[in-house]
């Protein structure tokens, strides 16, 4: 076999410690055996769900699709942020897996790098999938993946705490009424609200509904509206309505705080529904209000099924079959139920709400949600990084919200100028 001779030659060279032998390994040589791991009817499959092994619903779903297609699927779960690095490295070395399930804001970045095949090339039928979800995977009119499900954030509330403070959850319809509620709750000796303001994409993901709800958009994050959104968060911190720990909170930590039962509100995601049921807290869910009232558009979360570019184009046919199987109506319903996600297809959502009425506010929130990369494409990561920096600087008191956002806007513009 070609690869074997190549390998042993490489091994000899290395064993001799010949420098050229080492540098020969560098860069983007096309003959580096891209498909050696996936030959012989084995298809490699990466996803960001290391917590689900082959015995879980998701693992079985993948296995089921392998059987249906008549191939072996070699599945590996990576941590979300690690998966991007892995995908880049593998792509650079021409060793990409056949299928990657990717976090949606990453799709445009990898697509721009030329790592992903378009759904058109693969011959995937994406009709019926919700527009606002598909948008996150589109660049210049081409679409690079199929959403496997969606999530977003909303406000969980603790009904017991609210009742004790005499707050009617239905009264929370805009920022003012929410802040009033927080004041009442803290006055009654409870804690107000917890969210995740950490300096990562998670922080931006949580802040975006407030930013969008203020009427601002990502093209100008230093607009008066945007500043008002950050001032809202900062005000909560200063008044003691939100704990200081939100500055370093991940969404999981923020959830743990809510789970203590002390907090009236927590901004968190669809994925905590199961944990909420288990917690024993009498909880409810509100969509995040906008400044002027009515639901604010939250950011869509969730993953896309994508197919990286292969040198061996014959593989695409089977890859397409596997993806088709994964996103077929029945399987999607099962998958999204297992992941506690909202289905990407309208009809399925109705089914989901029928099965579990608790999902209704989430379906509504997802329908109103916006993709993070929809407006900005690959500019999004630049803006997002500056946005979370600004949130950090303002909440920690290093800068005023106004100064922080102005600095962020400037840095973003010079970053994009390059």
């Amino acid at each position: 076999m070609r690869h074997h001779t190549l390998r042993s030659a490489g091994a000899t060279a290395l064993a001799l410690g010949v420098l050229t032998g080492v540098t020969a390994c560098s860069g983007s040589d096309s003959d580096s055996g891209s498909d050696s791991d996936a030959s012989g009817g084995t298809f490699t499959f990466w996803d960001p769900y290391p917590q689900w092994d082959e015995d879980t619903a998701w693992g079985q779903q993948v296995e089921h699709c392998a059987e249906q297609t008549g191939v072996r699927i070699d599945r590996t779960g990576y941590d979300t942020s690690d998966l991007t690095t892995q995908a880049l490295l593998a792509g650079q070395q021409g060793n990409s897996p056949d299928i990657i399930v990717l976090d949606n804001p990453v799709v445009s970045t990898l697509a721009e790098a030329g790592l992903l095949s378009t759904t058109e090339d693969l011959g995937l039928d994406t009709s019926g999938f919700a527009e606002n979800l598909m948008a996150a995977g589109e660049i210049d009119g081409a679409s690079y993946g199929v959403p496997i499900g969606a999530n977003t954030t909303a406000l969980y509330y603790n009904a017991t705490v609210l009742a004790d403070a005499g707050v009617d959850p239905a009264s929370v319809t805009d920022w003012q009424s929410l802040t009033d509620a927080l004041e009442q709750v803290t006055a009654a000796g409870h804690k107000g609200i917890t969210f995740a303001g950490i300096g990562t994409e998670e922080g931006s993901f949580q802040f975006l509904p407030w930013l969008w709800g203020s009427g601002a958009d990502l093209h100008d994050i230093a607009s008066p509206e945007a500043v008002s959104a950050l001032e809202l968060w900062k005000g909560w911190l200063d008044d003691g309505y939100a704990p200081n720990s939100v500055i370093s909170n991940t969404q999981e930590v923020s959830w743990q705080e809510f789970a203590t039962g002390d907090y009236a509100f927590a901004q968190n995601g669809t994925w905590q529904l199961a944990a909420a049921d288990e917690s024993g807290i009498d909880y409810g869910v509100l969509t995040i209000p906008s400044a002027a009232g009515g639901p604010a558009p939250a950011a869509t979360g969730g993953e896309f099924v994508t197919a990286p570019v292969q040198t061996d184009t014959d593989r695409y046919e089977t890859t397409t079959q596997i993806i088709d199987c994964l996103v077929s109506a029945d399987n999607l319903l099962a998958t999204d139920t297992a992941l506690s996600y909202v289905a990407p297809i309208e009809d399925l959502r109705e089914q989901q709400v029928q099965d579990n009425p608790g999902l209704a506010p989430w379906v509504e929130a997802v329908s109103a949600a916006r993709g993070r990369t929809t407006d900005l494409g690959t500019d999004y990561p630049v803006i997002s990084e500056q946005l979370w920096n600004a949130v950090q600087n303002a909440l920690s008191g290093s800068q005023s919200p106004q100064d922080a956002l102005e600095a962020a806007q400037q840095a973003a513009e010079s970053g994009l100028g390059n």
Partner: protein
Amino acid sequence: MTAVPTTGGWRNRQGDGPRRRRTPSGTGVIAWCFLAPLVIYLVTFYAYPLYRNIELSFKDYTVASFVQGNAPFVGWDNFTEVFESPTLGPALRNTLVFTLASLVFQYGIGLALAVFFQKNFRLAGTLRALFLVPWLLPLIVSGSVWSWMMNSESGVVNAALEAFGIGQINWLTSPHWSLVAVIVANIWIGVPFNLVLLYSGLQNIPPELYEAASLDGASTWQQFRRITFPLLRPVSAITVLLGLVYTLKVFDIIWIMTRGGPGTSSTTLSTWSYELGFGSLLPHFGPGAAVGNLLIVIALVFGLIYIRVQKRQEEW
């Protein structure tokens, strides 16, 4: 015990003639035979990553050109970008404070413990081994535990301080405290390293010296100053040098606890390098590698100082 130190007497200069600085020639070829495995190993496994780190810093890498390998050569542009960045000042200052504070406390505490454990007492060995347990924890766990303990509201550190009437300190979320918080955690991680190295160094000091000093009526403190510290100097030097190299490199613990923030209040050169290269969805490999190379140069300077000092000691 006989008079000759059998456990590998440490630079036993007392009473010896002048040391030969270089063994007679002819051993050159043999020496390189002993070094051959190392050299092969270095060339095989370090040459390429080192070349890569330098190459990254002189090219304009985007995600696309990283994958396709066709990034254009941009000369010193990445370095200029780094030097003009407003982050450079705080990063340098924090690196200096972080490294200095970590080294001083790690070494001081490590040495004190090593001297303490040198005396044979019941459980000494077991306790000493237990001191290494922090090293068994993956950094993601120890970093998380420290952030857990230092959480503003629910952290045990603040709970303990409150018992003494000290109000809430925002260890991880205040720009005034975040650097202190990561330094404390890093000292905790570094103490076992110093303890082990310095303890083995102490083991190599011939006990006869202490016996003689005891007979001369030297106090414990005098014994430490006249015997322990001078004879431990070579091991101390390598411990501090390695400690320096590792401290300059530390990024995981800071990354897990504060991500260099809030703002740039706990950003060091290595967290900055990582942040640029891998911290966001859009990597800046070039400037990231440039910062990495800056670190290598800094370590190099200290390496040179170490070798100078070592040479002078030998000539002396």
